[in-house]
């Protein structure tokens, strides 16, 4: 009988604003929420680098929880909670190989 292979747990996506500090994550999707100029916001985030597949990290949270300082690619941007919430990410395991 073949040994039980450990199955991969389903990937849990978080909103960027829920990510713990200094944790690497990968963007899964950038979705506009209702109540903003929705599509515009998503595109704007894409233009400044928030695209599926990019690596992100939360660098800092100001007092009272916003704004958030986010590292995306090689840049750092300050985002509101509501803006960060549009970015769905999945946390990467701690030991990440860097090329």
């Amino acid at each position, binding site marked *: 009988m073949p040994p039980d292979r450990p199955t991969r747990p389903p990937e849990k996506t978080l909103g960027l604003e829920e990510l713990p500090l200094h944790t690497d994550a990968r963007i899964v999707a*950038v979705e506009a929420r209702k109540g*903003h100029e929705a599509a515009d*916001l*998503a*595109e*704007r*985030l*894409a*233009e*400044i*680098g928030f*695209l*599926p597949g990019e*690596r992100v990290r939360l*660098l*800092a*949270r*100001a*007092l*009272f929880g*916003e*704004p958030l*300082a986010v*590292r995306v*690619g*090689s*840049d*750092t*941007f*300050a*985002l*509101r909670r*509501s*803006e960060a919430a549009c970015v769905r990410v999945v946390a990467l395991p701690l030991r990440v190989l*860097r*090329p």
Partner: protein
Amino acid sequence: MNAVAAEPLVALVGNPNCGKTALFNLLTGSRQKIANYAGVTVERKEGRLRTASGSRVRVLDLPGAYSLRPRTPDEQITCDFVLGRLADEPRPDVVVAVVDATNLRRHLRLVLALRRLGQPVIVALNMVDLARRRGLPIDAPALGRELALPVVETVGVRAGGAQSLLDYLERQHAAPESAVADGVDAPARAGGRAAPLDEAAAVAADMASVAADQHEVERILGRLGLEGVPADTPSDRIDRFVLHPVVGPLVLSATLFLVFQAVFAWAQPFMRAITALIAALAGLIGAALPAGLLQSLLVDGVLAGAGSVLVFLPQIVLLFAFILVLEDSGYLPRAAFLLDRLMGSVGLSGRSFIPLLSSFACAVPGILAARTIPNARDRTVTILIAPLMTCSARLPVYTLLIGTFVPARTVGFGVGLQGLVLFVLYAAGVGGAFAVAWVLKRLRRANAIQPLQMELPTYHVPSLRNLGIGLLQRVEVFVRRVGTIILALMVLLWFLSSFPAPPAGYPGPAIEYSLAGRLGSLLAYLFAPIGFNWQISIALVPGLAAREVVVGALGTVYALSAAGSDVAGQVAPLIARAWTLPTAFALLAWYVFAPQCLSTLVAARRETNSWRYPAIMAGYQFALAYLAAGLTYHASRWLLALP
């Protein structure tokens, strides 16, 4: 475009924070001219450079843009210019796409969009020194091959760092056909319109195209061995403190305190020197010319007018210098980050911090700095409240009144009463500004969340050269704007305060008889309820031009003939005797709010493109001033149990 008659035009385009402005400064030195684009308040920076062969090239520094799809008025200009939509502007001969070599991942996307436009594009790989220091494998020719565009290396902050770009422009100018060999699209260069371009495709409007562009960029980076994402950078390590929720605000407070201390303390000797110089000049003129109209015009009108501007120059220069250093180093966006929530509570964003900070020296540059705020409503509100930030011009008035009426006692812990009152006045200004912003926020109904998306660029050591150029520019703009219009207004006010001249033997001060005096006497009825006597009312009329003028005007009203620095010293004992304490306090309260500064109104008019907002500004500020003065007057009378 006739290449023979006109000078070639080179446009610098790039993402924000790519070092474009430093490169522009390097190329053009101080041969820059700053104006406005027609019909909008976006700054147009154009300069000239001379190539080695002596030919002249015009260089235009366009506002930074993340993509060709504009989100702010600044970006709109860049996009419109590049797409040739601006009626008054010619199409550029060469577009220099400036990219940050340490961050090709993001910057190359704009290059791809520019490439699709079919115009001659050359890529300036900027900050190569930083990139090499970080060990990134920079290979300009290889990048050029991948992009099919000419690529040159530049270092914006080092002398000679733009040589390769200059050489390229030189070759371009001399032999345009060779551009084909370098890989530039030939059709665009063939002396005519580029092939009609599919703008929508070029601009890459939607998510899918942005993602496609990013794939292309990653492919290119992969070919060059640059696809790695950097680990913890020195910037990040600094940010752990600077952006820390507790340590960060402490660092900010300490920085601000240092800046204010420095500006006020270090500027003193220079201010005294300038005051002395003006007094000396006044003395010279007084000796050289017989007493009469001309002498009065020169001493009371021109010197007093120019003096009232020049005396603040040291403070303004120092404050600008600090702001430029903080800006260049990359710290200011962090300050905006930390203050964003606080500002958000009154309906502003952290971006308003810089314009409001500048307003502590003088509201005029503060209002001009509001251009960096992308949201139109935020910008208007910032402009409307900027004058309430206690500007330097209030200091002579505060100094005179506090020095005369507030006893020089200490109230414990070594804090002097006079210093405390000054601090209270400052706080009242800031508090008032925030209160007004909050009211405007409620009136606006829209509860829209203001977008932020503010870049926090890497820290770097500010370049002295750029600092010098930036400082010179801002000071020049300030001195020219304020100096010319204030001088003109001072002369006019001198005229109104001197004519008609009273007949010989007139018992009261001469100014009473003049037009300004009559106006003041009328105003005295209006100001009686808040405790201003007619002398104050008259002095406020010339004081409308600029706040500090009221000190000299009081001197005129009390029939003094001293000029420049002496006035305050001689006025103090006179008003100490003539005024009651409530009157003095009421005048202080008036000055916290009153818009006694024509330059501010003019600057606001210029920045908002209409007289509506300056009118609102003047209206609400006069109302607040009257209210504050009235309350202060009656409250202090009651507290002091005066009749």
